């Protein structure tokens, strides 16, 4: 009985801690919204973050997008061949990329690359008292540090998703048409027949939500770092894990609502 109540106690504490953390992240989001529309706007900071989150992630997004499209074409081909429907490969790759894999893989890659960097950078600023220095100089750290990163996340992840969608379809085309011998015209026709504008649009909305999640969690974890270099490491790991899980879970619910 004691062991059972002990386990229940630990479970209760874990749930309470998780709910409390979620509440704090939502409060940070409210604070970001409040500061986002208050001038002066730090455009230079915003562009700097957009470059970091967006431009510098292009290579990795192109690489993952292309190979995902290629492997989807390969797998799809073997499946569809069983009932002579190879022509559907193009449409399937395009649907898969635009609805699911484009937004999800892009945001997971950006989480690993930029979300972790946000946590590490803000965490280092916290433990070296740079965030305290902002407070002392009567400058709000949310406005200076978090707002530009969140804006960059929300704007750049959808743009990177467009790149990922495009390169994924291109990769699928290359494998389907040039390696597996599917007719090029049929491949493209099936894409236009199966994929609607709404699929692309909803995928991009999802990507914007994921951009918000990864930047907000990266900033939250970094901003609340404690305990020196070890704390920065912990914050970075937690940011990547929590953001990745949150993206995958919210993906289900967003998909259920949208499609």
């Amino acid at each position: 009985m004691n062991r059972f109540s002990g386990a229940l106690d630990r479970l209760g504490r874990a749930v309470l801690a998780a709910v409390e953390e979620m509440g704090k992240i939502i409060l940070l989001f409210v604070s970001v919204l409040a500061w986002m529309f208050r001038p002066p706007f730090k455009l230079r900071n915003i562009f700097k973050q957009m470059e970091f989150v967006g431009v510098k992630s292009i290579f990795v997004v192109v690489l993952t997008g292309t190979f995902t499209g290629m492997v989807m074409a390969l797998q799809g081909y073997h499946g569809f061949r069983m009932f002579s429907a190879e022509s559907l490969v193009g449409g399937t790759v395009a649907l898969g990329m635009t609805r699911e894999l484009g937004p999800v893989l892009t945001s997971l890659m950006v989480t690993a690359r930029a979300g972790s960097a946000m946590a590490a950078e803000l965490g280092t600023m916290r433990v070296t008292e740079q965030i305290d220095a902002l407070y002392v100089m009567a400058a709000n750290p949310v406005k200076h540090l978090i707002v530009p990163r969140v804006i960059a996340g929300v704007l750049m992840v959808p743009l990177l998703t467009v790149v990922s969608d495009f390169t994924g379809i291109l990769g699928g085309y290359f494998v389907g048409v040039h390696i597996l011998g599917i007719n090029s015209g049929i491949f493209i026709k099936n894409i236009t027949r199966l994929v609607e504008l709404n699929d692309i649009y909803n995928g991009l909305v999802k990507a914007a939500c994921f951009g918000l999640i990864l930047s907000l969690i990266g900033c939250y974890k970094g901003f609340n770092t404690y305990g020196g270099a070890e704390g920065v490491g912990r914050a970075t790991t937690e940011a990547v894990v929590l953001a990745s899980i949150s993206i995958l879970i919210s993906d289900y619910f967003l998909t259920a609502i949208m499609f």
Partner: protein
Amino acid sequence: MIKLVDLHKSFGRQKVLDGLDLEIEKGKTTVIIGRSGGGKSVLLKHMIGLLRPEQGQILIDGTDITKLKDRALNEIRKKFGMLFQEAALFDSMTVAENVAFPLREHTTMKEKEIRETVADRLRSVGLTGVEEKMPSELSGGMRKRVGLARAIALRPQIVLFDEPTTGLDPVMTEAINRLIIDTQKNLNITCVVISHDVRSIFEIGHRIAMLYEGKIIENGTPEELKASRNPVIVQFLAGSIEGPIRIM
């Protein structure tokens, strides 16, 4: 100027400030001494509202800042400058951008004026030609001097120094001490310095306050402190391991 009344602050079960009272005189340098980890930095962070006490008042020119909301607290903070222990320069910005930060944030100065003011503040801490360097390219002493230039950029009335000479060689320690004395005199400001460097405290302090077990146990001129018979102060100033201060 600054008056702390019955301050209490704990972290978990550890009581750091335990009914602390202290008054900082205007236009003077007050040095707060005490052992490492004894709550000196915590005390300094209370003065500028980075930490809030569980109980007690912090009066800045008669205003109790413990009750203030963010916006009003920021108005009070504009009276302050602070030099952090490791200078806390923004490492993504150049030296010039660091010193210009408070000017850009709180004034409507044109870029030319900002450049001139930055050069002036850097000159006043003995630095020239470092404007375009990044903080990572500077030595510890230079970083602290840039930190001081940033702290005095807006010509504050009060400057807080958190262990300004920790980690510096004796020559640089002396240079920073001279800089604190000169800055205080030239700008006629109130300085609060946290230190446990016995040589420095007698050099720079008009008044010296000893923090021990969460309270100020002595507050007087350097001469009064030297003449004190309080065994804690005698042991601290002598750097002896024998006495009431226990080594943990």
